[in-house]
């Protein structure tokens, strides 16, 4: 039946919320933690290349990492500071990823019957599964070459021996290859996305930044993969 509405004679003001817990802030946290990990990965990749200068050079480099900053900081002090920063970044990065993913799931409760083709970037579409693969790999990688329990040799203080022992097995090389490629894709979108989130946006720079991101990702992938393949084919070890 017809109902009657009289126009309201008074009205209240709608509240406005704060944005410090918004999705944009999550994204900013994601970008900053990603940037920390990015800096670390770059140094890690460059350090890995020391292996091409021989066993003593590589082991010496590994030892040096433990002595940075002495005597201002105790032995392995800097290393632990770095490890703490990395752990914090990983926690923030993953927490934000989980929050944003859960939000995304909630935001599309009914899926498309016709699966949408990827129009934007493939790397962007694989961030979440890529991230999971990388997380699992990091656990294995730590057990393999940091703690040593998953390493065929597991000699303490002899990283060169451990690394070469790993990649004499093709399947370990295969595992590392899959993981590094996943990292490569992750970096491709990660770097690009980070500049979108944190950078000053100038019109016309989009394509340039996309190219830089791709170049960087390729460089990192090749750099990381050079070590296992060098060992597997016998250039190193």
């Amino acid at each position, binding site marked *: 039946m017809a109902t009657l509405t009289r126009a309201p004679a008074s009205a209240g003001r709608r509240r406005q919320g704060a944005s410090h817990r918004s999705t944009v802030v999550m994204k900013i946290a994601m970008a900053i933690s990603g940037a920390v990990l990015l800096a670390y990965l770059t140094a890690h990749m460059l350090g890995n290349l020391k292996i091409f200068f021989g066993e003593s050079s590589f082991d010496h480099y590994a030892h040096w990492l433990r002595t940075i900053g002495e005597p201002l900081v105790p032995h392995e002090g800097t290393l632990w500071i770095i490890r703490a920063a990395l752990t914090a970044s990983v926690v923030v990065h993953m927490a934000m990823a989980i929050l944003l993913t859960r939000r995304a799931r909630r935001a599309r409760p009914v899926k498309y*019957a016709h699966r949408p083709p990827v129009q934007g970037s493939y790397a962007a579409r694989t961030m979440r599964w890529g991230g999971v693969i990388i997380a699992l790999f990091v656990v294995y990688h730590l057990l393999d070459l940091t703690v040593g329990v998953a390493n065929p040799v597991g000699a303490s203080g002899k990283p060169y021996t451990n690394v070469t022992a790993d990649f004499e097995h093709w399947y370990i090389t295969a595992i590392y290859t899959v993981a590094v490629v996943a990292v490569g894709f992750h970096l491709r979108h990660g770097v690009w996305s980070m500049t979108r989130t944190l950078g000053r946006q100038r019109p016309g720079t989009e394509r340039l930044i996309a190219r830089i991101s791709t170049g960087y990702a390729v460089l990192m992938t090749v750099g990381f993969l050079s070590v296992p393949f060098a060992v597997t084919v016998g250039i190193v070890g």
Partner: protein
Amino acid sequence: MKLTLRIWRQKGPADRGGMVAYDVPDASADMSFLELLDVLNERLTESGEEPVAFDHDCREGICGACSLVIDGVPHGPQKATTTCQLHLRHFRDGQTIDVEPWRAAAFPVVKDLVVDRSGLDRIIEAGGYVTAPTGSAPEAHATPIAKADADAAFEAATCIGCGACVAACPNGSAMLFTAAKATHLGLLPQGRVEQDTRVEAMIHAHDEADFGGCTNTGECTAVCPKGIPLGVIGRFNGDVLGALWRGR
């Protein structure tokens, strides 16, 4: 030409809905996609069936009402084109085409292909305006605006609020829509003054309306019928960061 349409039919918000196939044997290549639906609907009506409900109004690509996901792509396969201006010459004779509504929690289905997009209005209400009451506004020529800024503001302002960005985004985010408006107003001296409070209020309203978070995937800009660049989102992020920094 002959086409088979598989269309999402859903009686109402409570109905589960599903895809139903219809043949249209007498389509013409000069028809628009919506005229194809008109032909189908006229036939359904005259045979006593309920026609397919879909949103449409201006049919010239500017009102933003039409909202069909065609073979998984909002507004269909042609770039920078709304559904109403998509013509059948872009399809093959005998083709089967899937037609679905925008899918997002923030866009609940009203009926068939019609969804409720009022979440977008909430975002504008939160801050997508310049506080300029009607009255004696300053003389229009009092504030010159650099042509580059005016042009960039205009480019962002061409958003038609159709919601294709949300429909395409794997996260169901309305960030391209939100950022386009904030960019338009923030680039102009008249709007810059309240940019800090604007972006905070808009992002809050965006999140409240159950849109997902942006992860810069770029799917939005790929389907945007007006080609709003992804750069507006970057600018928006920067504005939010700036607002946080200044502690508003």
